[in-house]
């Protein structure tokens, strides 16, 4: 009992610590990447290639004057960033980052590099908790008692709930093909086998439409450009977090980056085979675990870079365009994908 709890706690600490480190790295990648795309240098003073910039930023934000504006609803104003961070920290506990079903630590089965491998509701936990993220935004907007904040918060929450449907429907396509809510099973079904001997049996091949819908929807869910209507500096100054400063502001920023990591990991897991890699049947135990982490890391890095790449390449949507894309474009496409998976299963094309 206590051994299991210790292993679980260690997994929470290690995985959450890794994600939080990734957040810092991503902040650096984002700024250097932006500079690279815009043909300038970016942060390059602190440490080699400016690598320590995120640390300096964090320290600066920690020591900033802790302002609470005069007219806010104090309790809700403090609660909002806490909700955002908590939700972001909870969503990745069901994602399998690596193999390790056959590995034991101090006699306790590790159960994979995943915080909650036995959770029966699997990806549904992620979707359910993720849907609570709306509260952080809408409360930040409302409690700030600022017109920009209110509009930004409402816009953003309407955007989140609009794209949540398409995202969930795209996930349903994968679940229908898998027959399980657990992401472990989703990964297991995609690994090891090949079509025509070369194409790995990733879900992206039969469900390319679902994959595209999902990627677009998570871009909107993470409030990233081209969907960062909530911030829209040119019209709403900074949207729902305009009244936030110091670490409270950083909380929103960090949850955005954590959501980005979770979203990328989810894309990899659902559509790109998760931690599986060619030739993995030759390994087992710790070597398999290490190699699977590398494989996952490479795939994850690609999608994280995609987030940065898209951000500095595409202009922002107008709000009516955003709503039109979500409701009239993605939603029918996601439904069609679901129907297609059903038909393919009935015909025996997907086994």
């Amino acid at each position, binding site marked *: 009992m206590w051994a299991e709890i210790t292993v679980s706690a260690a997994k929470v600490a290690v995985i959450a610590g890794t994600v939080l480190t990734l957040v810092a790295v991503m902040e650096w990648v984002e700024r250097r990447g932006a500079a690279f795309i815009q043909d300038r240098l970016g942060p390059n003073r602190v440490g080699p290639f400016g690598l320590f910039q995120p640390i300096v930023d964090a320290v600066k934000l920690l020591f900033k004057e802790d302002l609470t504006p005069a007219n806010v609803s104090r309790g*809700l104003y403090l609660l909002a960033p806490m909700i955002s961070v908590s939700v972001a920290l909870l969503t990745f506990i069901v994602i399998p980052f690596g193999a390790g079903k056959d590995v034991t630590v101090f006699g306790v089965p590790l159960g994979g590099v995943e915080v909650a491998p036995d959770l029966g509701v699997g990806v*549904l936990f992620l979707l*359910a*908790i993720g849907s609570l993220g709306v*509260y952080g935004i809408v409360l930040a907007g*409302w409690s700030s008692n600022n017109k920009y904040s209110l509009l930004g918060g409402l816009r953003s*929450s309407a955007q989140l*709930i609009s794209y949540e449907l398409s995202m969930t429907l795209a996930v349903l396509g994968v679940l229908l093909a898998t027959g399980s809510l657990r992401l472990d099973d989703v990964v297991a079904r995609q690994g090891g086998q090949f079509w025509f001997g070369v194409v790995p049996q990733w879900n992206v091949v039969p469900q390319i439409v679902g994959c595209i819908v999902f990627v677009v929807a998570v871009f909107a869910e993470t409030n990233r450009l081209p969907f960062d209507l909530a911030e829209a500096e040119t019209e709403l100054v900074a949207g729902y977090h305009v009244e936030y400063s110091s670490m409270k502001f950083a909380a929103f920023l960090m949850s955005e980056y954590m959501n980005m990591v979770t979203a990328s990991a989810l894309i990899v897991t659902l559509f790109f085979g998760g931690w599986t890699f060619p030739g993995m049947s030759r390994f087992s135990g710790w070597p398999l675990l290490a190699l699977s982490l590398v494989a996952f890391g490479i795939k994850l890095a690609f999608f994280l870079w995609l987030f940065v790449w898209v951000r500095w390449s595409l202009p922002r949507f107008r709000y009516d365009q955003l709503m039109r894309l979500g409701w009239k474009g993605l939603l029918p496409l996601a439904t069609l994908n679901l129907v297609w998976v059903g038909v393919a299963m009935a015909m025996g094309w997907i086994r």
Partner: protein
Amino acid sequence: MMGTAVFYLVAVVGVVSAIAAVSHKNPVVNVLSLVVTLFCIAVSYALLGAEFLAAAQILVYAGAILVLFLFVVMLLGAPEEPPAGERRPFQRAAGLALAGITAAGGVAVLAGIRAAGPAGAAQGTADALGRLLTGPYLFAFEFISVLLLAAMVGALMLVKRKH
């Protein structure tokens, strides 16, 4: 024993936030307190072995229905409770009495079932529920779609501005 501790914690938090949900003056606080209560109920579902229902509770109730409530509160500019002017005192007393009777009735019912303990251990997994939904409850499953369609049409007609 961990489950026991969690249940009593959740029960206390749930009741306290439920009281806040119906009694606080600020409607935003009302809605948020109800979110907490519904979350506590979801944990109770999980403890009762209804894991899918627990997730669905958070997804549907906390993640959707109460967001709509919050939007309406903001849509109406967070209206405060109107001052208790015209309402007669006996109405308030009658309301409290009715609530009391309800509680007493609940407890009275409880006295009858106290003897039995946890019997079956049927797990409410998504798979098990899906088999019931597409089996004996197929008609209701399809009909839910019609019900929601009707609700959607009705609600849209109500809020539409006529020109």
